[in-house]
């Protein structure tokens, strides 16, 4: 119990920072220099961070899809990750107000200390437990699975903070880079007896998983998703997202 309490305290202290991170993402999006196709075409007429893509620049530009106002555009992330350093990617992400998602580019080239700092020092905001959490699993060139979490196109860290009894839903989002036939089979806990999470349900098609908490048991529950695929017979486990049951804070 001592370990859980310590971790809970540390995360409580970090909570304002995560709120700031969510706000920062919104600010970045609002101030992004490139918000439309016209902005993007204009950018191509002069020197820009896109020049780092060299012969791939038009392939990248054609992959950019702008969605609704206030939403982040989508683009070929793998093209960035396989051709550029972390700093070069960060500068391109900043064009679209997505620089806070740099930690998702863990396979980017690390050439300078800044590259290293960008890939190890960035933090993402909590996910919102009220909405399904889009969970992506992609294989990099070394066939290592990379987990990513997002909601409505905005990247989050996969963790949720709860103040009431809630059903947290994670939904698999498959892509061409996902392991073939990927399915969720369950979630595993380092302590299944702490009462933070009371029930785990996997959908019949293995494409979503729901966790039900009990807010009466304050603390942090760490869990890892367990998945199977048609790549082979071994089970894949995710790095650990977590649920934080905040419950009632004691009076000061």
């Amino acid at each position, binding site marked *: *119990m001592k370990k859980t309490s310590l971790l809970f305290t540390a995360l409580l202290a970090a909570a304002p920072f995560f709120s700031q991170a969510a706000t920062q993402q919104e600010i970045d999006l609002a101030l992004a220099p490139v918000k439309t196709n016209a902005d993007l075409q204009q950018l191509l007429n002069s020197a820009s961070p896109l020049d780092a893509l060299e012969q791939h620049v038009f392939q990248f530009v054609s992959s950019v899809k702008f969605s609704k106002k206030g939403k982040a555009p989508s683009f070929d992330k793998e093209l960035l990750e396989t051709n550029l350093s972390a700093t070069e990617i960060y500068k391109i992400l900043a064009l679209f107000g997505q620089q806070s998602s740099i930690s998702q580019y863990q396979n980017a080239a690390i050439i300078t200390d800044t590259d290293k700092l960008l890939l190890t020092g960035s933090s993402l905001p909590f996910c919102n437990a009220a909405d399904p959490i889009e969970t992506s699993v992609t294989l990099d060139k070394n066939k290592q699975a990379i987990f990513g979490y997002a909601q409505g196109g905005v990247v989050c860290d996969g963790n949720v903070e709860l103040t009431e009894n809630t059903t947290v839903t994670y939904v698999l989002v498959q892509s061409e880079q996902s392991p073939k036939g990927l399915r969720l089979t369950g979630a595993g806990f380092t302590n299944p007896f*702490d009462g933070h999470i009371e029930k*785990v349900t996997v959908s019949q098609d293995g494409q979503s998983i729901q966790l039900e908490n009990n807010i009466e048991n304050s603390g942090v529950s760490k869990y890892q998703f367990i998945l199977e695929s048609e790549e082979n017979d071994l089970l894949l486990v995710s790095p650990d997202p977590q649920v934080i049951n905040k419950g009632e804070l004691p009076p000061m």
Partner: protein
Amino acid sequence: MNATTLIQGPIIDVMITLDASQEPKVTYLQDGAVCTGSVVVTCGEDITYRLVNSAGYAFMGAGFLTPYDHIIDAVQVSADGQELVLVDEDSVSGTTKFQLIFTNTTNSLLLLSPDPQIVNKGQVPPKS
């Protein structure tokens, strides 16, 4: 559980206990001595994990952060869930980390062990 043609490698006893705070602790023992549960493999073999003194627990399987690295080729669990075998043909050199996954009779949640690891050393090529 299917028998393989590989030689029998280490047999590691796995004991699950609850500490004073009711947190599960997973302990590994080999020949009665506490060990890390990690194994270094230099030739193809079956690595066996066997539950001991852990009433109410059973192996569900093993989970890997990198299941596609071909370091472990298959996982087999006995019908009674008391034994788990990692089949390692040692065809690929490298280190793989995995976590043992257990069911328990107290509730429906799965327990995960901290991660032991398998290191495939293979044959070191002769120096030219």
